[in-house]
């Protein structure tokens, strides 16, 4: 009972913050839109891939990117919470660390999911026809991807002492995860060196699943993508719970 209310409290806080910081939502959607409109539109005037216009082709990729960036950053943000003592108030509460982690993780995932939904609306403008089933499966992919990546961010954030390392993580983790995922190109006939990284990148499977669901073209069966992604998420959540357990 107490743990459940604590979980709700942490989640409630994230939703409040999300609805109150409207400028943050707008700015977090702006970059993905630039990619779709400028990059996708520009290149799309010349090429089409997988039987669809390039702009439509990269749409699932940019949707994934929105989730990727907002999830990892959400998790990393606890470095700041730790610094300004805000997080101590949470840590000193009579709640288990598992509950605190779960509250943060679900709060952040819903945060990212809502941003993903906003992106999906733009898909309509690109002429993508959503079926109810496709939307439902997309939500599942987006939520699992978000919970894996929020956990990843929380793991890194809970082990970091200062915000100085942020840029390093963006350069060496977040951007590679985006580029290797095949967000901008089909992963069918890649040279081996690229294929290795692409196969190692967990985001690849979320993206392939989403592309299969929304556009009907994927390299792996959608169900297999879901299983691989879910395994990655399970590992991240497990490590995250453990990391929070040893948080000072």
């Amino acid at each position: 009972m107490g743990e459940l209310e604590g979980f709700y409290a942490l989640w409630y806080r994230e939703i409040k913050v999300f609805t109150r910081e409207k400028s943050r939502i707008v700015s977090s959607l702006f970059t993905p839109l630039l990619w779709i409109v400028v990059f996708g539109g520009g290149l799309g005037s010349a090429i089409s891939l997988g039987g669809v216009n390039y702009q439509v082709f990269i749409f699932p990729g940019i949707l994934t990117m929105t989730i990727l960036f907002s999830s990892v950053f959400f998790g990393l943000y606890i470095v700041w919470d730790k610094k300004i003592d805000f997080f101590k108030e949470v840590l000193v509460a009579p709640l288990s660390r598992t509950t605190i982690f779960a509250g943060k993780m679900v709060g952040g995932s819903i945060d990212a999911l809502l941003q993903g939904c906003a992106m999906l609306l733009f898909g309509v403008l690109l002429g993508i026809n959503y079926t109810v089933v496709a939307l439902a499966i997309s939500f599942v992919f987006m939520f699992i991807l978000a919970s894996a990546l929020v956990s990843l961010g929380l793991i890194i954030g809970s082990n970091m002492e200062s915000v100085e390392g942020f840029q390093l993580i963006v350069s060496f983790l977040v951007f590679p995860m985006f580029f290797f995922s095949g967000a901008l190109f089909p992963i069918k006939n890649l040279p081996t060196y690229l294929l290795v990284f692409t196969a190692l990148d967990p985001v690849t499977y979320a993206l392939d699943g989403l592309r299969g669901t929304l556009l009907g073209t994927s390299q792996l069966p959608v169900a297999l993508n879901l299983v691989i992604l879910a395994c990655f998420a399970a590992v991240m959540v497990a490590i995250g719970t453990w990391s929070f357990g040893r948080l000072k």
Partner: protein
Amino acid sequence: MALTLAVETEHLTKRYGELNAVTDLNVTIDEGEIFGLLGPNGAGKTTTLSMLSTLLKPTEGTARVNGYDVISRPADVRRSIGIVFQDPSSDDILTGRENLYLHALMFGVPKNERDQRIDHVLGLVDLRDRQDDIVKKYSGGMRRRLELARGLLHNPRTLFLDEPTLGLDPQTREHIWAYIENLVDSEKVTVIITTHYMEEADRLCNRVAIIDHGKVVALDKPSALKSTVGGDVIRLSVRAPRIDQLKTLDYILSIDQTGSTVRLTVKDASKHLQEILGIVGEADAVEVRTATLNDVFLHYTGREIREESGEGGIFERIARVRSAH
């Protein structure tokens, strides 16, 4: 109710590698006391508080808080204490009331009591008319008051205050002191306060433990501590003080000289001032006062506590600046 102990520490020790942050701390704090941990920055006050509030595990020894052992029953300890941290720990994107609501959820305040408790603590710190404002719009003092209210929300038996007036202007500091005194009367809590402000310890605390380098060097009522200095303090600014001649006077208990500044501890200072001035040489400035806790600290450690010395890294300072407006 039988008199019980709010806090009892047994050989409480925290080491970070070679550094002894807190060494073999043995104190008992009665229920209903305002107990002060006074010492300079880095003396181990916050570390002690962190161990008592179960945020840090002791390297050796243990402590009981409200009857619960901090090592074997941390959850019970947490439920029975309130804590106000040194740096702002309220969420500045939420309103005052929302902050309290979250705290009520996390600390398991029963649903049917929540609103009533929140109203009650908001009343205690006079924040009812600002409860629906976002905390970002609060002044530093208001934010402190909100955090005091939050610390009391779940009816704790012991309230920990870590440097409750750090970074506040003198007037706001006075206000916060008045609030703390009121809370102790009306809420019947034990209050444990860390501070490096002598005046704060003197004004608020029933008993004070003076801490230096992780050790308690003195522990008593402020008045008793001050009497250990043995007299009044005279501070003189003299270009060429005749120290040797002062040493012959038996009513002078101690002499410290730093350049042209001479600090004397004297029995019955007002009676002997004339004679001292006659002996020491031409003085540019003279100050006579009764002993303060600062003199006590000097007496035990040979150093003064420097007030307002900068503390912490850039983030603490940012947080403080952010809370100021």
